[in-house]
């Protein structure tokens, strides 16, 4: 009984120091999956730049080196140095249970960013996930294509081809499901999928796939691709076959530099931007809130954003 009381007292004391500590200054440990990845670098800089606007916040950013074990040691080191909160961009989303347990045992708030942890449903109270919902990416893309088809007078019936990413990849599965979900709504039920095939996220495979589709001569009104790379491959195949790509309705996801250039040139019509810097900022906000003891939602969503020729200029330098 005495021990329990002591523990409770200690706990309150610790909580107290954590609270007063964060009011004046907060130490945040950040472990990134890897430094040498374009997207994750934008995310990392999003955290760093945002932290610079808050003089009381000190960051310690570590490179997980794409190694589950290295990342775990980094988290242990953060815990040992008693940071106020930890941000983890998991190397492997299946290895997060161990990380969650370490942080929970030490009672240090933990925020996962970008990659959704597999233990999402069982996350302890002071842990959260900040990222973008793949349900949005394919939905935004397909809804926009649906709108373009309607605007083009195809509202009574339209044929589309669907290009899938790697078949066992969560993003590919989800984005393809999004396409089907949008087509199932009464608004877009005029769309019919002629064929749906994988091109493994790759541009060269997409070129071959599109070329094969073109040989069938079946009239199509749009191509919906799971990512920009495959959409660009499809466009190249169309160009090789003498198709006027300016009038083709084709969409992708990612808003890569080349995709934006293609959109500028009038070829790609739709892409979707994932806000890496926004995710970084959101992760830091959530970590600071948790450090203060504020309750946050288990999943904090940073919305995907639709990119079209109308708003492309805002995105040219973002990725």
């Amino acid at each position, binding site marked *: 009984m005495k021990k329990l009381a002591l523990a409770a007292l200690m706990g309150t004391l610790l909580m107290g120091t954590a609270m007063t500590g964060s009011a004046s200054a907060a130490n945040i440990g950040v472990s990134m999956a890897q430094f*040498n*990845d*374009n997207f994750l670098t934008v995310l990392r800089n999003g955290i760093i730049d945002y932290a610079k606007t808050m003089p009381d916040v000190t960051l310690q950013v570590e490179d997980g080196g794409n190694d589950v074990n290295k990342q775990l040691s980094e988290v242990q080191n953060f815990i040992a140095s008693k940071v106020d909160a930890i941000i983890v961009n998991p190397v492997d989303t299946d290895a997060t249970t161990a990380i969650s347990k370490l942080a929970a045992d030490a009672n240090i708030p933990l925020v996962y960013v970008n990659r959704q942890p597999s233990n999402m449903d069982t996350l302890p109270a002071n842990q959260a996930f900040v990222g973008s919902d793949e349900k949005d990416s394919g939905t935004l893309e397909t809804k926009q294509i649906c709108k373009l088809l309607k605007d083009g007078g195809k509202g009574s019936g339209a044929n589309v081809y669907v290009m*899938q990413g790697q*078949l066992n990849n969560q993003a590919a599965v989800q984005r393809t499901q999004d396409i089907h979900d949008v087509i199932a709504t009464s608004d877009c039920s005029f769309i019919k999928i*002629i*064929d*749906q*095939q*994988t091109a*493994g*996220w*790759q*541009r*060269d495979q997409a*070129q*071959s*796939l599109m*070329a*094969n*589709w*073109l*040989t*069938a*001569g079946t009239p199509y009104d749009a191509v919906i691709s799971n990512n920009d*790379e495959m959409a*660009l*491959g499809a466009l*190249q195949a169309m160009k*090789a*076959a003498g198709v006027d790509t300016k009038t083709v309705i084709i969409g992708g996801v990612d808003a*890569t*530099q*080349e995709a934006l*250039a293609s959109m500028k040139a009038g070829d790609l019509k739709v892409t979707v931007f994932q806000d890496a810097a926004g995710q970084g900022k959101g992760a830091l906000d959530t970590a600071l809130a948790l450090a203060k003891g504020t309750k946050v939602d288990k999943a904090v969503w940073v919305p995907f954003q639709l990119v079209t020729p109308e708003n492309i200029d805002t995105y040219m330098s973002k990725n």
Partner: protein
Amino acid sequence: MAEVAAAKGSSVDASQRRPWPSEVNILAGLIAIALMFEVLGWLLIHQSFLINPARLQIMILQVAIVGIVAVGVTQVIITGGIDLSSGSVVSAAAIITMSFAQVSTYSRAVYPALTNLPIIVPIAVGLACGLLAGLINGLIIAYTKIPPFIATLGMMVSARGVSNWYTKGQPVSFPTDAYASIASGIRPVIIFIVIAIIFQIIMRYTLYGRRTYAIGSNADAARVSGINVERHLVLVYTLAGVLSAVAAIVVSSRNLTAQAGMGFGYELDAIAMTVIGGTSLYGGRGSIIGTVLGALIFGVIISGFTFLRIDAFYQEMIKGVIIIGAVVQDVYRQRRRGRI
């Protein structure tokens, strides 16, 4: 049997003496598969599969790049070896090549000072990369005697590492118009066919070819008959590396980009084409023509599946069955010849 046994030790390919070369069987298989799709096409979607110039073109075009790799892999397999590194070498060579082929108008070029270079620069750099990778493979295999499977597995991992490291995972795009024109239109097919013809002649009519077959048939006998086996193996693997680099140049030019994930699985597709084309995994037997036919079978199947709108999941399963079938057939042929 007696005739086969006599041919075994000699440095001449046994299949050349037969009145009925195995390539005829493969050609028959190719025609049978194509006709099968033709019939299914009329039955299922009321369309001709073969009477469609655009489709005939894409059938070859989509396998031309891996086909170039397969020409090198065929020679390696004829020596009794294997090359698992080709796909990774393609990606490494493509990324490095492309970084010397960018236009000056692109603000994020890898080497901003080295843009708009004459086309010969990236080509030479690319070929040098492939040559180096192949040379390392060959030297390790010939002089350390470790199995080709392991040596090229190491190169497969390392070369992929190089392509990831070179631009830290970023794609390299926006090539000059001259570079983009290397593989525009049906040029990949022309490059593939020219390379195939050259190596078919080399393998059949030159000392290089006879030595390659001899080493694959029986390396000890080849050594006794005065062939420098080590030096020849280095040459064969180096050529395979160079051909991977040619494929890298073609694939990056055709896609207008080079990426670390490029060429993934090329090595296995190339090996599959080679085996389907009748080259024995036990070495000593096979031909470039066979590999070209094997590549065409691949092309017909890919186009056929898409033509029939067969779900992507089933395509992979069926592709695996065809590869196993070809190897089983090879083992069966070898058994008849008494080699295993």
